[in-house]
C-alpha cells in the first residue's frame, strides 16, 4: 500500500477535481450553449481565447496565473485575497485548464440536439425552463456528464499549471501528480510505482465510465431520427 502522504495528496487532487468539475458544469453549460447557437460580434476571438489552454504550455498558463493571483497581483488588488499557493488557486487553475475540454464536449452534446425538437417545444406554448428540464437536459445529460468526467480526469492528471500556481506544500497544495514527481526526484521508485498504479486504475475507471455514457448517448440519438 502507498504511504499516508500519498492518500493525503490523492484526497487533495480529488477535492480540487470535484470542485473544479462542478464549477465547469455551472459555467460550461451557458457558455457552450451560446457558442453552439448564438451569433455575436467577436465570437471567433472569444472561442480562440477559451481554447487557448489547449495549446498553451501548462507552465505558461501557470506562470500568468501566478502573477495574477500572487502577492501584489491584480486579484489581490481587486479582492484583497492572495490565492497563489492555496487551495482556491488550484481550483481556479484547474477550471481554466480544463475549460476547453469541457466546452468542446458540451457544445457537441448541444449541437447533436435535433433543432426541430426545440422549435416544436416552443410552438407548444411551454415555458423555457420546462423545455430545459423535460427536453434539453434529458437528451444531453450523458454528453454533459461524459464531458464533466473527462474534465475531472484531466484535472487529476494536471501537473505544470498546479505546480506553478500551488507549488508542492505537503497536505496543502501537493497534488498527487506532484507527489509522484517528488518521489521520483528522491529516487523512491517502489513507492512511486505503487502510487502510479493507483492513479492508473482511477483514470482507467473514469475512461470506462465515459465510454459507457457515450454509448448510451449514441443510443438516445439514434432514436431521434
Amino acid at each position, binding site marked *: 500500500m502507498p504511504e499516508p502522504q500519498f492518500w493525503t495528496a490523492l484526497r487533495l487532487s480529488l477535492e480540487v477535481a470535484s470542485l473544479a468539475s462542478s464549477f465547469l458544469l455551472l459555467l460550461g453549460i451557458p457558455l457552450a450553449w451560446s457558442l453552439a447557437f448564438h451569433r455575436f460580434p467577436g465570437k471567433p476571438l472569444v472561442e480562440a481565447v477559451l481554447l487557448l489552454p489547449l495549446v498553451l504550455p501548462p507552465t505558461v498558463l501557470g506562470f500568468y496565473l501566478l502573477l495574477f493571483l500572487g502577492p501584489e497581483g491584480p486579484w489581490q488588488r481587486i479582492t484583497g485575497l492572495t490565492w497563489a499557493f492555496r487551495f482556491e488557486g488550484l481550483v481556479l487553475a484547474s477550471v481554466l485548464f480544463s475549460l476547453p475540454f469541457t466546452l468542446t464536449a458540451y457544445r457537441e452534446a448541444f449541437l447533436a440536439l*435535433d433543432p*426541430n*425538437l426545440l*422549435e*416544436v*417545444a*416552443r*410552438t*407548444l*406554448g*411551454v*415555458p423555457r425552463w420546462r423545455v430545459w428540464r*423535460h*427536453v434539453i437536459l*434529458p*437528451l444531453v445529460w450523458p454528453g454533459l456528464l461524459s464531458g464533466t468526467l473527462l474534465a475531472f480526469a484531466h484535472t487529476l492528471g494536471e501537473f505544470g499549471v498546479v505546480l506553478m500556481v500551488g507549488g508542492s506544500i505537503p497536505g496543502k497544495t501537493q497534488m498527487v501528480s506532484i507527489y509522484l514527481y517528488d518521489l521520483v526526484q528522491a529516487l523512491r521508485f517502489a513507492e512511486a510505482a505503487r502510487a502510479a498504479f493507483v492513479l492508473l486504475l482511477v483514470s482507467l475507471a473514469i475512461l470506462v465510465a465515459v465510454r459507457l455514457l457515450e454509448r448510451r448517448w449514441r443510443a*438516445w440519438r439514434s*432514436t*431521434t*431520427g
Partner: protein
Amino acid sequence: MEVHYRVRWPVRLEVGFQVRGFTVLLGKSGVGKTTLLRALAGLVPGEGRPYGGLPPERRPVGYLPQDLALFPHMTAWENVAFPLKGPGRRAKALALLARVGLEAHAHKRPSQLSGGQRQRVALARALAREPELLLLDEPTSALDPLTKGQVLGELVGLIRREGLPALAVSHDPLLAGMADWLVVMGQGVILQEGLPAEVLSSPARVEVARLLGYENLFPAQALAEGVEVAGVRLRLALPPWARPGERVWLGVRAAEVIVVRPERPPPPENVLEGVLESLHPEGLAYRGVFRGPLELQILLPRHIQERLHLRAGQGLRVVLKPRYLHLMPG
C-alpha cells in the same frame, strides 16, 4: 380564415389566401411552402395576419413539422402531456390519445410506432395545446407508399372531426384530392385557390396545370371556334377571356384522351389519326404514347384495354372531346 403573410428570409414570399376546413397548399419544392408554415408558427420572421408579431409560444397553432419532432425519450402519452399542466395531465393526455385512436399505444416510445401512428401522436400533442389552426408540413412524406392513401385518409378524417381549420403544405397531388380547399403556390406567390374539383379541372395557368399533373400541354393559338395546335385545328368553345388570334396553352389529361373503338363510327370532330408508339402497364391501368399530328400521352383504364387489346406499333384513332380540353392564358 384569411392568411396574409410577407417573409423576406430565408425565402422571399408575399401571399394571401383563405383557409377553409382542411386546406392543402400545393407547390413544388423550394417555392417557400415550409417557410410560410414556419412564419405562421412564428419560427421565422414574417409579417402579416393572423398572429403577426407574436412569439411562437403565444401563437395558438398546432405545428407538425415534416419529421414530426416527437420527443424520442418520452412515451406517446408523455409527448402528448408535454404542453399540459396540472394534476390531470396524464388523464387528459390519455383522452387525447383515445381521440386519435392510439390509447393502446400510450406507453410506447416514438421509435416503436409506425409512421402513421407517430403522425397521430404528433396530432394529439398539437391538440393538447388547444390550437385555432393546425399547420402540417408535408404530411405524406413520412408514410409508407403502400398505405399512404389510407393513412392520410384517416388523418384527414380525424382533423375534420376535430372541426379545426388546417393548412397542410405538400407537393403530393394525392393530398390535393382530399382537401376542402386547394391553394396552389408558385415561387413566393399564390397562383390559384378554390374548391379542389374546380382547381383540378380548370387550372388557371400552365404552371398550375403542370403541378396538378396535366401530362399533355401545348402552346396554341385561339381561333374563332377553337384552337390551332402545331397545325391541327381543334374545335372547342373559347372561355370568355380568350380572343381569336391570342396565344394560349392547351391542356388535356392523359386519362381524358379517348381512344376511338374501331367498330364504331368516329365522332364528328377533333379526331386524330396516328400510331400507338408504346404501351406499358401502370398499376391496373396502361400508359402509352400516341404519335400522330400531335404527340399525346394516354392512360387507358383496364376495362378498355381488356376490350381493345391494343399493342405498341398499331394504328390508332383518338378523340379530344371539347369538354376535356382546357385553355389557359399564354
